[in-house]
């Protein structure tokens, strides 16, 4: 009698759960032909009625992109992407919506399925939503409440028209278009995204939220988010991502720029659950994202929290540049790779100002044939006197075909700084499973309990509703994986 083998069999018998959000919506859409060239970029700009300075920004970025090479240092394996086979713009045909009544009912149904409380009656949870459906921001709710507080929360395209001075002042200041290959690509073709401005001395009255969803076939999603927190302000921003099931791989290359001025704080949380591909690694989203925050002001704070369970490829390093004295950067991450998913993710903390502090907590889970790489950099520059960093990167492996890799880079040029980095790699202990089994808890439940415990330090950083969603997501993503 070999009990473990039996449990293993039971586990593999449980059919691995299908992607819960796998459906697509049949709506008429307006789309540009596939391919990338100056004309396509001009067309995007024209459809969106953009001013000339923005078109110039796009074209310059495109010129830079053409000269750049795809990065190859990451631990990800995938076939070469043909950037001329991608459609860079598609949008539902109806436009200029003033209220929810004008939104295509099909779309609303989609949101219902996604569980987005777009419907006003459902808005008890006090969440304002800016939904990006493929390439155009459809409707934004709760605008009035926000308006009273002076908070600007709108689609990026709207902001370009309404608040050109703010956009001009900050666009590309945190992530210049030449920063990297995918940032340059995004800067050339970005379709839409969110814009947030929190005025001085303002605490944003509610959590702001965006749901991203990739719908049309062969469309890359290139959204761009810019959040500015002025002096003494605070905002918590949630980003959720889903995409329908498709056989071919879809590209996503987003940019998120955050700026905090004196005493301001931005808390940015992501739950990324894009289609991870099927059990055999077919399909799924390629997620190449550049996210960076600039703690420009003194005593300011930027906190990234991410739960990454989706996408077949993840390439993502939400970072903080700690320029203001006493500024704080945080990065809390849970990344899970099951089946044939690959994730190369981590953060950069660049300490420039005095007494700056950063904390990194990263939890990687690999199962099936999944590959996980934590790649992080902590850089303490010469003038960052008394700066501190604490990093903890733990990995857990479930099954013997997966991999977990830890690649920290620590560069210190200041003797008054204190840096601690810890990392562990382990498997789920047989002792732990036996203990749980002995208390009547099934192996599958025990794995889920242990993994949730493993991730607790990160989950508790999420807003409550998100934390529950994240836990459920982990359970779904882990279903059907076996130990040993």
């Amino acid at each position: 009698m070999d009990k473990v083998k039996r449990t293993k069999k039971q586990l593999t018998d449980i059919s691995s759960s299908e992607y819960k959000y796998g459906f697509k919506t049949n709506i008429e859409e307006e789309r540009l032909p596939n391919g990338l060239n100056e004309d396509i970029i001009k067309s995007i700009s024209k459809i969106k009625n953009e001013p000339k300075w923005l078109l110039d920004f796009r074209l310059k970025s495109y010129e830079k992109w053409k000269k750049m090479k795809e990065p190859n240092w990451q631990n990800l394996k995938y076939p070469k992407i043909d950037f001329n086979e991608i459609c860079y713009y598609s949008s539902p045909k109806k436009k200029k919506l003033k209220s929810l009544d004008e939104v295509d009912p099909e779309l609303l149904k989609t949101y219902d399925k996604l569980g987005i409380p777009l419907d006003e009656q459902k808005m008890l949870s006090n969440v304002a939503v800016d939904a990006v459906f493929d390439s155009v921001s459809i409707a934004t709710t709760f605008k009035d409440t926000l308006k009273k507080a002076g908070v600007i929360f709108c689609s990026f395209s709207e902001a370009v028209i309404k608040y050109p001075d703010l956009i001009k002042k900050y666009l590309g200041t945190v992530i210049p278009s030449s920063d990297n290959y995918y940032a340059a690509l995004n800067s050339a073709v970005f379709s839409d995204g969110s814009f947030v401005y929190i005025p001085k001395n303002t605490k944003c009255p509610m959590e702001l939220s965006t749901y991203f969803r990739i719908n049309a076939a062969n469309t890359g999603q290139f959204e761009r988010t810019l959040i500015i927190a002025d002096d003494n302000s605070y905002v918590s921003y949630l980003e959720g991502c889903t995409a329908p099931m498709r056989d071919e791989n879809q590209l996503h290359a987003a940019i998120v720029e955050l700026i905090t001025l004196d005493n301001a704080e931005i808390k940015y949380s992501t739950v990324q659950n894009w289609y991870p591909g099927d059990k055999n690694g077919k399909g799924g989203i390629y997620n190449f994202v550049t996210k960076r925050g600039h703690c420009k002001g003194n005593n300011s704070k930027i906190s990234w929290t991410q739960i990454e369970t989706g996408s077949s490829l993840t390439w993502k390093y939400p970072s903080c540049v700690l320029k203001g004295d006493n500024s704080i950067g945080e990065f809390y991450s849970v990344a899970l790779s099951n089946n044939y998913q690959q994730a190369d993710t981590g953060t950069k903390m660049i300490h420039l100002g005095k007494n700056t502090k950063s904390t990194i907590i990263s939890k990687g889970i690999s199962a099936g044939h999944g590959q996980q790489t934590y790649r992080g950099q902590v850089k303490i520059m010469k003038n960052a006197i008394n700066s501190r960093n604490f990093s903890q990167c733990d990995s857990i492996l479930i099954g013997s075909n997966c991999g977990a890799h830890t690649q920290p880079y620590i560069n210190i040029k200041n003797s008054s700084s204190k840096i601690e980095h810890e990392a562990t790699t382990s498997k789920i202990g047989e002792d732990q499973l036996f203990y749980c089994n002995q208390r009547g808890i099934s192996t599958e439940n025990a794995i889920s309990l242990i993994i949730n415990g493993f991730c607790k330090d990160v989950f508790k950083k999420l807003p409550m509703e998100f934390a529950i969603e994240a836990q459920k997501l982990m359970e779904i993503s882990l279903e059907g994986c076996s130990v040993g």
Partner: protein
Amino acid sequence: MAGLKNNSKLKDDLIDKINNLTFLDKEQWKYTNFNYLSNFNFDKNISKNSLSIKKNDSIEVLSINDLNEDSEKNYLKFFNKIIPQENKFILYNTAYFHNGYFFNVNKNIDDAYALIESNITVNSKNNFSNDRIIFNFNKSSKTTILFNEKNTKQIKNNAVYELFLDNNSCVDFIIFSNQPSATKILNLSAKINKDAILNIYTINISGELIKNNYFINLDKQNSKCNFNGIDLLNKKNHIDNYIEVNHNNKNTFSNINYNNILDGYSKGIFYAKTVINENCSQSEALQSNKNMLLSKSSSIHSNPQLIINNDDVQCAHGSTTGEIDSDALFYMQSRGISENKAKKMLINSFLFKIINKMKDKKILSSINNEIDSWINNVD
């Protein structure tokens, strides 16, 4: 009898290869100026024999020039077999080495000992000397090898060591370097067989530019490597250590402990990469790197990497960097120890705990004296 270095065919092949070599593992050379180093000459014959070797009878040492037909055959079984070939300095060494030795440690002995001292007398300026030493540790042997490199001259050395540990052998391999003006490139490969243990101790006290690459292969079950290193740097010293450990079998164990003290304008690099390959279950890999910065202008780069491809393993790494522990300093002062004395005691213990497992206590104590005299120069 012609030694390998006179084998013109081999040399021509390699020169072609060197000239055609464009790729270098960039990660290994991220913090050290490769182009600066490659502008020197590696092909000049500087000094015929600059190594002095003392050893006991348990080890047979052959100079490459003295190989007969049989011993050359044996030598070729080991020569250039495990050292990576994509590194230009290794290829230079293979093509031009002059100080070539073959150390053969007898089986079933437990007292093998060799002391190797370099005494380069010529100021080589732009020319590198190329040492090439192969160590073959036969079954169930116990050995201590000590490189005692003490030199104030501006020497330039490009060394390659190839270590083969047969079943159940145990080696303390100590490289002690106190060469403030030295430019040194070392490439060391080790292949460790069943139940064998390699304990490396590397102690670098100063050095103008030192680039060490270690490639450790745990090839058979139950092989072990304990890698212990300390660097004491000041002025404009630059020491770059790259340590790669490959777990290629089940039940293998590696433990890297590296502590650095940096003063003046010095720059230290710790780059460790431990790879646990598939099917290497029940393996354990540990890495620890601790750094103490004593001056404002010193800097450290620490990259402790773990590449894990198996779930039945235990791995952990840690890296800390900071000043001297002020709590400990205060505690000692409260017990009547002067600040200066307390500081020196703390630095010494920070370093000594890394190397104190060394089996030969005489060597340990003389190394400790050298460390102390370096510490005494700290303000």
